[in-house]
C-alpha cells in the first residue's frame, strides 16, 4: 500500500500521540478519546484503513485504539 502525504502524516500523528500520552495506563483508550475530540471522521477512517493494510507502521497502542473504535 502506498500512502499519500495526508496518510503519512496521520501515521506520524497517531504514533506521536501514543508516545506522548501523559499516563501510561490504558493508552489506547486515551488515544481514542483524543481522536474523538480532535480528529475528523475521515481522518479516523483513514487511520483504520492504514491499520488494516500496514499494521507494522503503527504502534501497538494505536492499533489497539483503532480496534476499540470498531
Amino acid at each position, binding site marked *: 500500500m502506498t500512502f*499519500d*502525504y*495526508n*496518510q503519512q*502524516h496521520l501515521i506520524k*500523528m497517531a504514533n*506521536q*500521540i501514543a*508516545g*506522548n500520552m*501523559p*499516563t*501510561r495506563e490504558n493508552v489506547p483508550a486515551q488515544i481514542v478519546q*483524543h481522536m*474523538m*475530540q*480532535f*480528529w*475528523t*471522521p*475521515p*481522518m479516523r477512517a483513514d487511520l483504520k484503513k492504514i491499520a488494516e493494510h500496514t499494521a507494522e507502521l503503527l504502534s501497538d497502542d494505536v492499533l489497539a485504539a483503532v480496534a476499540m473504535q470498531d
Partner: protein
Amino acid sequence: MNKPIEIAIEDLDLGTPAALSESTVTVHIDGKAVDVPAGTSIMRAASLAGTQIPKLCATDSLDAHGSCRLCLVEVEGRKGTPASCTTPCQEGMSVKTQTPRLDKLRKGVMELYISDHPLDCLTCSANGDCELQDMAGVVGLRSVRYEEGSNHLDAGKDNSNPYFSFDASKCIVCSRCVRACSEVQGTFALTIAARGFESKVSPSEENAFLDSECVSCGACVQACPTATLQEKQVIDLGVPTRKVKTTCAYCGVGCSFVAELRGDELVRMVPDKQGGANAGHSCVKGRFAWGYATHSDRITRPMVRETTDSEWREVEWPEAIAFAADRFKAIQQKHGIDALGGITSSRCTNEEVYVVQKMVRASLQTNNVDTCARVCHSPTGYGLKQTFGTSAGTQDFASVQQADVIMVIGANPTDAHPVFGSRMKRRLREGAKLIVIDPRSIDLVKSPHIKATSHLQLQPGTNVAVVNALAHVIATEGWIDEAFVQERCDVASFNAWRRFISLPENSPENLAEISGVAAETIREAAATYAKAGNSAIYYGLGVTEHSQGSTMVMAMANLAMATGNIGRDGVGINPLRGQNNVQGACDMGSFPHEFSGYRHVSDETAREQFTALWGVDLREEPGMRIPNMLDAAISGNFRGMYIQGEDIAQSDPNSQHVAAALSAMDCVVVQDLFLNETSKFAHVFLPGTSFLEKDGTFTNAERRINRVRPVVPPASGLAEWEVTCALSEAMGYTMDYANASEIMDEIAALTPTFAGVSFDLLDERGSIQWPCNEQAPEGTPIMHAQRFVRGEGQFVTTPYVPTDERSTRKFPLLLTTGRILSQYNVGAQTRRTDNTVWHAEDILEIHEADAELRGVADGDWIEVASRAGSTRMRAHISDDIPAGVVYTTFHHPVSGTNVITTDNSDWATNCPEYKVTAVEIRPSSAIAVGM
C-alpha cells in the same frame, strides 16, 4: 473624615505617581481639606483637591525630581519654600500654593528658563502643546530682563531617528526624558552629560539617537514638556485637532492608545495613561510604526482572477463576492461540503473572527475552521484546559509587580512584548529574582541594573526535561505546598504526579546531559522558584512551538500548583501571546473542535444554544486543523479556503508544502491589506481594513477586552465583517448585523465567559477582563482565586519524549527562530514602515566556534539547509547562543526562514515545531533567494 479622593482623573497630570499606602493623611491645601494616601506629594494632593501647582520637571508617570523649582509652596510652621513634588504630605499639614512670595519666585525661575529658550512660540511646532509655554502663561511672565549672553540657542538638531527629532536648543534639561528612559522603559539609553551650564541630554555616550541604545519606545518624547523631543509627524503636519481612543494592533500586550488626528489624517499615536495593559507606555511598533495603514502597497479594491497565473482584475464588491460564492458552491457540489474551510486571524477583531467561524460552521456547514493560533499558542489552549480548566493566562499584567521570583521560559519580552517587558524590568530592578530558561541569552539575562539569578541555557527541544528536573527537586526536597495541593487540587492526580516526578529518571543529574544544563544550576533555580513568597512563570512560543509543547504547558502548570503559585497576585502561569488578538481569536470559537467559550462541538447543550440562535443545524464532529486541511489539499480532498488576514505561505512551516497545498486548491480567498505571499496562490482578493478602520474589540494576553474604535473610515468602503456576511449571504445563509456592537451582543449571548460584555460596558469602564458575567460583573483580573475553573487543579504526568528532529552528521546544528523588537511576525506591517532602519533583513546568529569551523565571517552570506529546504541570509557571529545552536527571525519573505522549518509538530495540537530544526551552514554567494 473626608473620603479619600485618589481617583483616576482622565488626562490630568497629577505631577507625581500615586502613593500605595493604605493609610491616609489629611492636609489643607489653600484652606481646603483633602485626604490622601500617606506618602502622597503635596503637588499630587493639590491636584486632587483641584489646584494645579505650576511644574516643569514633574509628571505623574515619573518619580519626583525636584529640579525645576517652579512648584515651590509654603508650608505653615516651616521655613523656606519646599518643592511640592518632593515634599510628602503629613497629617494636619497646611499648605499655601499661591502667595505673592511664591508668585515672585516662580516668575523669576521662568524668566531664567526663557532667557535661554528660543522665542519662536508662534512658529514653534509645539505651539499650543508645550508645557513651558503654558507655565510661562500661568506664572504671568511678560518680559525677560536678562541681556543676551551665553546660551544654547545654536545647539543642533538630531534627526537621526526616523520618527522623532531632538532639538537641543529647546531643551530645559528637566531630565524628564532621561527619567522616562530609565524608570518607564528601563533602557537607560539617555543621560545628562557634563555639568552646570554645559549640561545636556545625551543618548548613550554622546551618540546620535539612531546609533545609541535607544529603542524608540517614545517614552522620552511623551515626557518632554517642550518641543525638544517631538514626533516628526507633528513637526510636518501640525498639532492634532481631534482624538480617538483605540487599541494597538501589534503584539498580545494590547496597548491602549489615543489616536490624534487632523481631520482624517493621523498625526500621532499617544499611549493612553488610562490603558489597563500599558498604563501610558508604548513601544516603537505601536507608537510609531503605523504608516503601513496608508502605504501605497495597500489594496483597497476587490480583485479576482480565473487562475493563479493570470492577471488580477479589479471588480466591484458584488462581483467579487459572487465570484467567490460560485467557486465555493461548485466545490461543494463536486467534492462535498468538507472540501471547504477557513482560517481566522489573530490580527482581526473578536467580531470579525466570530463572523468568519460562524460563516464556516453555519453557512459552509463544516467545522473546518482554524486560526493562526494553531501555529503559536494552541498548546496553551490544550495544556491549561487539561490542568486548570480553561485556556487563559491566570494573571493581569500588573500582577508582576507583586512577584518575588519571575521565571521566563522561551520568551523574549523586551523584544516581542516590550511594554510588558518594561513592566517586568521595573520589578526586577526593585529586587525580584529572575530565572531565564532559554537556549539564547536574551536581553533580560543581563541588561542595565538587571542580572538573572539563573540562566538555564538548555538545548533546543529539552524544555520538558528541564521543568521535570525542577519539579523533581521540589518534590524530593520537600518543597511542595502540601496545604495548597490538599485544598485546591485533585489529590489522586497529584499523588500519581509526585510518584512520577520523584523517579530518578527525572533528576537533574540524570537529565543534565540531555538538556545541557548542569544539575547544580537546576537545583539552585528550583530552590529560588519554590522558596519565594510569590513565583510567577511567563512563557512564549519557545514553550509551545515544540513537539512536546502541550506537555510543557502542563509541566509548568504542575510546577505552579505543586508550589501553591496560583490564584493570587504575583504568581501564575502567563502565556505571552504573540499577536494582538490571539486570546480573542481562540475565545471566539476559531478552533475546529470548539464553539466560542471553548465548548466542544459534541457538547449537545452548547450546540443546541448555537443552533437555536443561528437557526441552522450544526455538525457535532470536529473539523480539520490547518495542517490537516493542507494535507487534504495535496491529497485532492480539500479544494477551497477563506483566509482572513494571515499569510500562511510565509508564516507556516515547510513553505514548499504549504505552497503545494495552496496550489492544489480551486479557490483560495484572501482577505488582507496587501498582496502577501499567500495571495500568489489566491483567486479572490478581498481588501481588509487596518486597525485604524476597525470597529470592535481585541482581547489581550491578560484576557483584557479592549475597544478598537474606527479612527478613519474603511479604505475599501466596507468593514471586514460586512464582507464576510456578504459572502455568507451569497452562499445562502444570512448573517444580519447593523453594526459590530450587535455581533458582540450575540457573542455575549452564546459565550458564558463574555455574558456581561457589551460595547456600552467597555466604553464605560475602558476595558474588562473575562470572565465577565453574573458571577463576575466587573471582570476577573486574577483567575482560579478560590477554585480552578475545572473545580480541582489536575496534575498531569509529563514524561520527556525527545523530538524526532535531532542534529545529525548531515545537519549538525539546531536552528531556533524568534522575533526582533522592530519587526512583527511576517513583517507585512513593519516592513512597510521606517522600522526597516533597524532590521532590514533576517540575519542568522551563529556561535564563533561554529562559524570558524565553517569558514564563515561576520556579515558573510551563508546557505542554511535542512531536510525541508534551503535558503540564504547573512551571518552574525554572536555569543548570545551556545555552540551547536543557530538562531534567526522570520520577518522577511526574501529569506523565507520557513522554507527550512519542518512539518514536525506538537503531539496534541499540531502546533509546528519552529524552535528545533536540524540544519547545516555553509558559505554562499551574495544572491538572496526566495521560496
